[in-house]
């Protein structure tokens, strides 16, 4: 597969047209998506939009940063005129009536939306198995789950269906599938990217982010989608930086012994540690990191219950409780239960208090180091058909959730394979410039 930088070079020079690029993706989707099931619907205007980009280039007009590149979008992000069904029967035929901020920015930079990606239903999942429209396969490791909830986005990149995909990450939903599918994935700092137009799972934790075959593709997309928006009051009042050229030779790298007790497969820990051994990482202590899962889920349950009250069957499709899968229903009913007046908020407020402790520990660590390196998941992806308890499913998030709780950015790059299954190394960073500085440097160790 051609890297994004090389693809842009070919588009700029004219050796490749936007139409050729998009047609290639559409042909590839047509050939294999029936098996992979990464894409739920296509943009019927994609080729016409590609032709418009080619005409614009021929006229000598200034071109956007994403000119001619093909983008696939997770189905919980609104693209005007396309189905935003969150992979649920609840919104089966819901056509978005407006563009999310990230989509407006992509279009302004001449990116072409190819279609909508499959996902775990309403982003409630870690495997890509809970979509109402069928499981997504893992193109990089057939028979193993692709991860979730941005399963289709990661699989689409791995299968060669697009240059860059968009996913959303609340507790690891970009990074988990990025690791399992052997691609690069970024969860931005909270507030770095506007959530306007994202159908929320948990408003205080959600972020939209990119997935691509290389760090450059993700960095480029971050340059496009980052920045303040008046549509989302939680966005940071800062302009996007030049992530594609971020470089810093003096990055202080750390790991933490507190990660070891969370890991169920030491091969993963060994692979990740060997990838950064040359940096002679220091160690930081993160005392409460092993409570991340227990902190996260009460918050998500309550916020998701709140956010789904609008799906009452009057305006947006069906009543969610009557049309959703088990995990979605579990979060709604659990959220309803623990937010009852009789509990006086103890579940949610206790979780908020521990969330603050975890965040404080990470922010304290970043006073002394620049990046913290760790595995993405404590175990390799399971195989389709394997039965997991709910708690075992939630345990996949042990390494990814802390970044969401602290609101920091995190990225995943492939660092090797174990038994034919890709493994991604995760990096926490104080900010995106630092993150991309390190990822730009370390990505040469990735093995596909």
């Amino acid at each position, binding site marked *: 597969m051609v890297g994004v930088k090389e693809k842009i070079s070919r588009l700029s020079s004219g050796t490749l047209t936007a139409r050729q690029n998009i047609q290639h993706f559409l042909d590839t989707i047509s050939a294999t998506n029936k098996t992979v099931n990464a894409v739920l619907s296509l943009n019927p205007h994609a080729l016409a939009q590609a032709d418009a980009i080619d005409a614009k280039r021929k006229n000598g007009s200034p071109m956007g940063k994403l000119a001619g590149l093909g983008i696939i979008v997770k189905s919980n992000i609104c693209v005007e005129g396309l189905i935003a069904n969150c992979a649920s029967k609840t919104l089966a035929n819901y056509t978005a009536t407006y563009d999310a901020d990230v989509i407006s920015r992509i279009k302004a930079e001449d990116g072409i939306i190819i279609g909508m990606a499959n996902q775990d239903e309403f982003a409630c999942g870690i495997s890509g198995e809970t979509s109402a429209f069928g499981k997504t396969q893992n193109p990089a490791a057939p028979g193993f789950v692709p991860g979730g909830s941005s399963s289709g986005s990661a699989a689409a990149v791995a299968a060669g269906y697009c240059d860059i995909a968009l996913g959303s990450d609340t507790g690891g939903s970009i990074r988990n599938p990025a690791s399992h599918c052997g691609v690069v994935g970024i969860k931005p700092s909270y507030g770095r990217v506007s959530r306007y137009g994202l159908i929320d799972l948990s408003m205080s934790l959600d972020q939209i982010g990119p997935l691509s075959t290389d760090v450059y593709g993700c960095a480029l997309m971050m340059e496009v989608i980052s920045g303040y928006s008046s549509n989302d009051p939680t966005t940071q009042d800062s302009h996007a930086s030049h992530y594609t050229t971020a470089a810093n030779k003096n990055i202080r790298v750390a790991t933490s012994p507190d990660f070891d007790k969370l890991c169920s497969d030491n091969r993963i820990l060994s692979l990740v540690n060997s990838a950064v051994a040359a940096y002679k990482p220091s160690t930081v202590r993160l005392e*409460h990191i092993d409570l991340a899962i*227990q902190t996260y889920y009460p918050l998500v349950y309550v916020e998701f219950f709140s956010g789904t009250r609008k799906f009452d069957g009057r305006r947006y499709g069906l009543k969610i409780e009557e049309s959703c899968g088990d995990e979605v229903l579990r979060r709604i009913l659990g959220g309803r239960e623990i937010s009852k007046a009789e509990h006086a908020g103890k579940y949610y407020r*206790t979780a908020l208090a521990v969330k603050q402790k975890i965040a404080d520990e990470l922010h304290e660590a970043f006073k002394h180091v620049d990046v913290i390196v760790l595995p993405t998941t404590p175990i390799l992806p399971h195989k389709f058909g394997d039965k997991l308890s709910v708690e075992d499913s939630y345990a996949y998030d042990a390494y990814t959730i802390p970044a969401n709780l602290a609101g920091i950015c995190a990225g995943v790059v492939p660092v090797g394979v174990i038994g034919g299954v890709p493994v991604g190394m995760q990096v926490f960073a104080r900010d995106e410039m630092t993150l991309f500085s390190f990822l730009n440097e370390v990505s040469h160790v990735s093995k596909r």
Partner: protein
Amino acid sequence: MDRTESIRAQATAIMNNFFEALTRAKVSSDSYGVKATKQTRHPKKRDADPRAEFKGRMLANASSKDHDYIIAEKKKW
């Protein structure tokens, strides 16, 4: 036990297990957030299907209406 009740019971058990684990962090739920003494949700009053009375409530709350239609003018409601 029907599906809904089974899932509700499971979710509640998970939340209780998680809450017990969080007590290890020695934080008090009183130490964070604002206690809302008013506007708390009362399941008995709210969880009944409100669809039957929804229309009536909407029309009753509307400042301007014409039979079954709510007349909503900018900045006037």
